[in-house]
């Protein structure tokens, strides 16, 4: 019975370490997907002058599932009957998807800032705002990658070690 309990503690603790490590990796992946999305957006607006609703729907369809909702949610809010501005629709989409995505407060701040001039200025300025967002996201992604590479294994071992410690102390 005691052995079974000890194993359970070990397993849970190890899993927690793994999950935390995986979340670090996930953040890096999400940021990369977002960068890709914004690059496509730059092309849609810069070369195609495609309206936001259409551009976001199109891009959303090509992105991985997790970030897709951010883009399609925006398009849905924008085309809704409430007559939201692009910024309002973007903030709403961010709020709705906040819980589902492993991003940090800083990442969210970058995304939130992006909404401010969305759709309200000429093409040149829109493209430069997108470039700026991509630059800031790239910075976040580099940081996320560093953290994930440095700490993923650490968290895994830490999880296991913490489990072992608990078992040793209480056994």
């Amino acid at each position, binding site marked *: 019975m005691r052995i079974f309990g000890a194993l359970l503690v070990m397993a849970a603790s190890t899993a927690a370490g793994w999950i935390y490590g995986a979340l670090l990796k996930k953040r890096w992946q999400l940021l990369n997907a977002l960068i890709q999305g914004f690059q496509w957006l730059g092309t849609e607006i810069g070369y195609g*002058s495609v*309206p936001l609703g259409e551009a976001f729907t199109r891009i959303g369809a090509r992105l991985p599932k997790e970030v897709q909702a951010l883009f399609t949610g925006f398009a849905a809010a924008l085309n809704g009957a409430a007559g939201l501005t*692009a910024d309002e629709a973007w903030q709403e989409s961010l709020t709705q998807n906040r819980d589902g995505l492993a991003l940090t407060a800083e990442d969210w701040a970058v995304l939130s800032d992006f909404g401010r001039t969305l*759709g309200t200025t000429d*093409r040149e*300025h829109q493209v430069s705002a997108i470039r700026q967002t991509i630059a800031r996201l790239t910075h976040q992604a580099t940081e996320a990658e560093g953290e994930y590479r440095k700490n993923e294994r650490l968290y895994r071992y830490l999880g296991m070690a913490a489990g072992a410690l608990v078992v040793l102390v209480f056994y």
Partner: protein
Amino acid sequence: MSYAEQVLPFLVPKVRWALERFRRVAPEKWARLEEIRLRAGQPLQVEAGASLLVTADGAPAVRPDQALPVEAPDVLRTVQLMGGNSLYTLEEELREGFITLPGGHRVGLAGECLVGRGTLLRLKRVTSINIRIARQLKGIGRRLLPYLTIGDRPLRTIIISPPQAGKTTLLRDLVRSFSNGEGVPAPVKVGLVDERGEVAGSYRGVPQLDVGMRTDVLTGCPKREGVFLLLRSMGPQLIATDEIGRPGDLELIEEILNTGVGFIATAHAWDTKDFARRPSLQRLWARGLVERVVLLSRRLGPGTLEGVWNGQTKEALLAEGQRLEAKR
């Protein structure tokens, strides 16, 4: 959905709500809606037979202070809604000063301009919006058609009228009738040079109003280039265009004359005398370059037919004051 209802989703919510109530409160006025005007700092105004002020509850207001005030942000917001919240898609429109909405409704813009090297680059800040409700009244030109053809040949026709008397609506219907072969001996291929996008009401290049199945539309193209492009490439039997009367238009018509195709055009003028006095149109009348002149007025409401003249003999072929009616 009535024509005017199509524009409601593009208005800032407070104006939209006021007009939705207006539609319920005064359906007979709504049915005659011609224009919706938003001006920063001014009350909400509509043209529906007469110029009216509208309150927030949708009732016609007597005094300006009772009417729904429209503020500068409301005007900007409306422009953004018209551009799908993507102002950058309206660069061309802000240079030209108008937007076309789905359904072919035309939105005129005015405000603060951005000027570079002495020319207008684009509108920087829009403060006035005029939404003109496009109507398709199929069959209104039916009674005129017998006067506008000889055998199979469409005659060179000019429709003249004061503003808002239904020139463009009539032109659209004549184009559609010729193109579909309704009420004429044989259908003809029509080339429509829709410089201001009002005749076919094109939205992203696709005509929103019915201009007939044998009509090729050139949207947003200057008249001269447009006419020659169509003559070269599409082999039209009839060229149609809106709003002639600028210097150079006369030469254009002379050139069309040489190619032997028919044409229908519209021009601003109060009556045939005014038409004959207008410097750029005078020679058309004096030299009998046009074969038929159709005059419209607003005497009995928009689309009052005042008469049809033979442009060469100046004799009246049809003289009456009667409103043109849509036929089913």
